[in-house]
């Protein structure tokens, strides 16, 4: 008899939490969709506008149904986006490679071989990100000018490396911290030198993290505008500088700008798409160990 009582009282108790959790769950889903669409809408609008004529692009109310045209893309590629793309590509790849080459050993040392001043060093790194770039641009300009390095792609590479290093060191450090100390000890007991244990044991483990770091540094370098617009003119100008060229004193070429912006965004989207799996692994490193 008591067993029956228990069963009947237990049933609603067991289902109750599920029912109540569905309410906030659904609400959160709706919210997530709203936020997601809110982020995606400008991108969608940009891509749509890229396929409109200049006249369609500025109508009010906006034109939603239209016959797509590739004229804007033809204009972008015909108008010489090539050198800008190459500059951006070179600055991005070179600075990211440099960041990884310099940042990986630094992050390794700061995580697996900490010393007394490790915290101070880490704080110094992050403190360099606290000053707005605007505040430093005048001295940077003066120095670059003095060195005769204005409108030089290597100037951007050095600056982008410096800009991304602190972030890379912090990110990579968090990945290195996830590597159990015993693995390095085991490798050393097994006869591996520090270099070999890094290469054979540690790097394969943190490769998703390195991919994530590389992608984030690439995105920052690819999108960087402020240094590029102030320190380059024609030879070393990057894609973001080219985009601004569509905002002229005679008016805004909105459809062309959108086409150029779509072209500029594509490499990052493609890189992100390719690195998707590694990226998710990398960014959720500790959680899935």
């Amino acid at each position, binding site marked *: 008899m008591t067993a029956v009582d228990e069963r009947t009282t237990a049933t609603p108790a067991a289902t109750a939490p599920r029912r109540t959790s569905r309410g906030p769950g659904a609400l959160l889903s709706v919210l997530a969709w709203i936020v997601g669409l809110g982020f995606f809408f400008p991108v969608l609008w940009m891509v749509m506008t890229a396929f409109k004529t200049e006249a369609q692009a500025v109508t009010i109310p906006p034109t939603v149904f239209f016959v797509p045209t590739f004229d804007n893309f033809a204009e972008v590629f015909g108008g010489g986006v090539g050198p800008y793309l190459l500059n951006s590509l070179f600055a991005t790849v070179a600075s990211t490679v440099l960041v990884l080459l310099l940042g990986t050993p630094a992050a390794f040392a700061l995580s697996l071989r900490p010393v007394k001043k490790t915290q101070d060093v880490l704080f110094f790194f992050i403190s360099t990100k606290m000053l707005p770039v605007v505040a430093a641009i005048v001295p940077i300009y003066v120095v670059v000018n003095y060195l005769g390095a204005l409108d030089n792609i290597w100037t951007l590479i050095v600056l982008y490396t410096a800009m991304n290093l602190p972030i890379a060191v912090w990110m990579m450090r968090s990945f290195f911290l996830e590597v159990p100390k015993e693995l390095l000890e085991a490798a*050393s*007991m097994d006869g591996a030198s520090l270099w070999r244990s890094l290469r054979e044991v540690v790097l394969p483990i943190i490769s998703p993290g390195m991919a994530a770091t590389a992608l984030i540094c690439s995105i920052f370098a690819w999108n960087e505008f402020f240094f590029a617009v102030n320190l380059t003119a024609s030879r070393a100008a990057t894609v973001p500088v080219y985009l601004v060229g569509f905002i002229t004193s005679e008016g805004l070429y909105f459809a062309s700008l959108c086409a150029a912006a779509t072209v500029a965004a594509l490499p990052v989207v493609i890189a992100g798409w390719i690195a998707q799996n590694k990226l998710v692994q990398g960014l959720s490193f500790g959680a899935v160990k």
Partner: protein
Amino acid sequence: MADVVFDQASRIYTPGAKPAVDRLDLTIEDGEFVVLVGPSGSGKSTALRMLAGLEEIDGGSIRIDGENMVGVASRDRDIAMVFQNYALYPNKTVAENMAFPLKMAGIDKSDRAVKVKEAAEILGLTDYLDRKPRALSGGQRQRVAMGRAIVREPRVFLMDEPLSNLDAKMRVQTRTEIAALQRRLGVTTVYVTHDQVEAMTMGDRVALLADGKLQQFASPADLYDRPQNAFVAGFIGSPAMNLFRARVTERGVTLAGREVALPQDVRSTIGSKQLTEVTLGIRPEQWTVAPDGGEGIPARVDVVEELGSDAYLYGTLAESSGDLSATASLTGSHDDSVVVRTAGRTGARRGDRVALTPSTEGLHLFHPETGDRL
């Protein structure tokens, strides 16, 4: 194969503070299986890591085959270690994990495969060679870690609590496997554990450490039968030895108001040290239980743990007046509580009154302050 000597070896993390390992002296014979045991913070793992080259040697020296290891890197010591969490390389297969030390030693691929296969056969891992560690059970991972250690035939094996991540049944099984494997290979082995059962069952000799200091280094039987001090007495054996503070009388000592006679030689030792009190140790199996009113010290049974083959009675000595207080600090026994091992199913129940008599051979006497054996 090698002998290992700790010669006044010390590890001092912060200058001026208490050393983690304090002037440790150990001589480990070639082929011997030595267990370092002790409570947490006793320095046993640190001592092992000093031998491994993972911790500095701040004082004294450690010698392998007469060769001083101070300043020698881990990778040049030719010793293999099994870690508590196994430390398998997660991105390598079982075969690659086991072959890694051979690869580092520059042994070519075909020879590596042969040796890995041999080790895998010994450890029953042949079917798992292509798996990654994450696809293995705890016991299998443990065996891979063992395989990685034995495959290169090192001078010394080091094992740092290799069984503590296994479930109880697996632990007992692996315990005997490791001991058998060590005897078969004959490689000098230093094994760290906090579990005194592992220490007693696996080691040729056991080194018991506490607070960074060596308490006793002897065979398991010696450690049990002739503990050098009250700490060793309380640590080795389960349940722990009963330790009481007892007043010295003319013919022996008094325990719960009853006189317990002591042999002449012990009495003269106590006399020469002019002690009025001693710490009296009696193992749980060294009591004879008689019904209430019989000969012996009256006691009340508080808890009965029936294990089938035998039973543990946890009780309180009665008539414990001012002459009896307990040494509680190191053993966890306190006041006038007592543990007695009896045969199973004797019918003793909670609340029963019994009379306890310690056997004369089972008496251990320690100095009340220093804890040293008298």
